[in-house]
């Protein structure tokens, strides 16, 4: 007896997302798009991209026979779900912030979410810059070291207390000095 898989594969999920996105930006196709997203979300309630995208789409879609409050409750539920299942990732947190700020006119609830989103995004930026500069130092060409030195200035100002940034900035400068790009 063959088992029916309970969960779709990653490939299947992405295919369904591509399907749901069809007709993006075309207003006349929006209701059909909403239907496909709803189906996708119903079967995959932890799929953050679909939750976020449907949450945004519904704010722009006027569904006949749907009371505004009913629509807003659904959007809020989707966005809160996206925040939760994504482990409070920046994009989801900020999207919920905008919804509360604008559609619920509750900036006092949105502000802490904007702050949280900004903090999360900064962590990612610190991580990405450290990796990028390390790669440029390892590449060790005139061009790559120049890029590392340029980014060093910005990175140091933004992350003065980051050990990772300070470390890689130090490496970039030392390597540049050794290769004659910077005066000791």
């Amino acid at each position, binding site marked *: 007896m063959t088992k029916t898989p309970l969960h779709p594969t990653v490939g299947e999920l992405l295919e369904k997302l591509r399907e749901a996105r069809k007709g*993006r*930006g075309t207003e006349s196709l929006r209701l059909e798009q909403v239907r496909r997203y709803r189906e996708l979300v119903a079967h995959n309630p932890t799929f953050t991209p679909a939750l976020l*995208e449907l949450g*945004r*789409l*519904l*704010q*722009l*879609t*006027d569904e006949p026979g749907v009371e*505004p409050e009913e*629509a*807003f409750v659904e959007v809020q539920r989707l966005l809160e779900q996206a925040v939760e299942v994504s482990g409070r990732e920046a994009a989801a947190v900020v999207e919920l912030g*905008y919804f509360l*700020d*604008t*559609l*619920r*006119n509750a900036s006092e609830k949105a502000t802490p979410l904007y702050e949280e989103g*900004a*903090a999360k995004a*900064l*962590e990612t930026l*610190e991580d990405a810059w450290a990796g990028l500069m390390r790669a440029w130092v390892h590449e060790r060409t005139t061009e790559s070291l120049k890029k590392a030195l340029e980014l060093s200035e*910005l990175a140091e*100002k*933004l*992350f*003065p*207390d980051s050990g990772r940034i300070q470390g890689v900035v130090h490496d970039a400068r030392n390597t540049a000095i050794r290769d004659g790009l910077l005066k000791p």
Partner: protein
Amino acid sequence: MRTRKALLALWAMLSTAGCGHGEAVRREEPGSGLRVECARGDEGACGAETSGEETRSKGGTVSARIWALIAQGQFAEAQALIAESTAAGLITQQTATRMAERITLLTTRLGQVPATLQRVKDFPSQLREHSLFQIKQMLENKDFSLATQAQLKLAEKLIEQQERLMEKVQ
């Protein structure tokens, strides 16, 4: 704590570089020439320097003038200058597009936002025929003759929200 510090540092850096949301204007700094302007603080908007000091200075001046015209609501003049400057190669196509998008946003009337957004609680319908630019002006001038401060703020948020959502659902 550390994050707050980093956020402040980021803000300070963007301010000195003349980058920021809204009507960013390229600032001329004595001695150091022109700082790179940044229309929206997003990718590609900052650091879009063109090669050659002369072109950069010229482009900077023109760009600053256009952003100032947009900020003042002189959209026809701004549009004419955008077309002229793009043709003359003084501003990039990307900058021209950003400027045109900004004009579109500022001239959007509250009544043009999608019906769903018009159904929010306390929607200020009396502002339907007013553009984002006019609403911003009323807020700035503390002109509450047509709508309360809270209504003007909500109207501003709704127009801006529809623009960011439209961009994201594309």
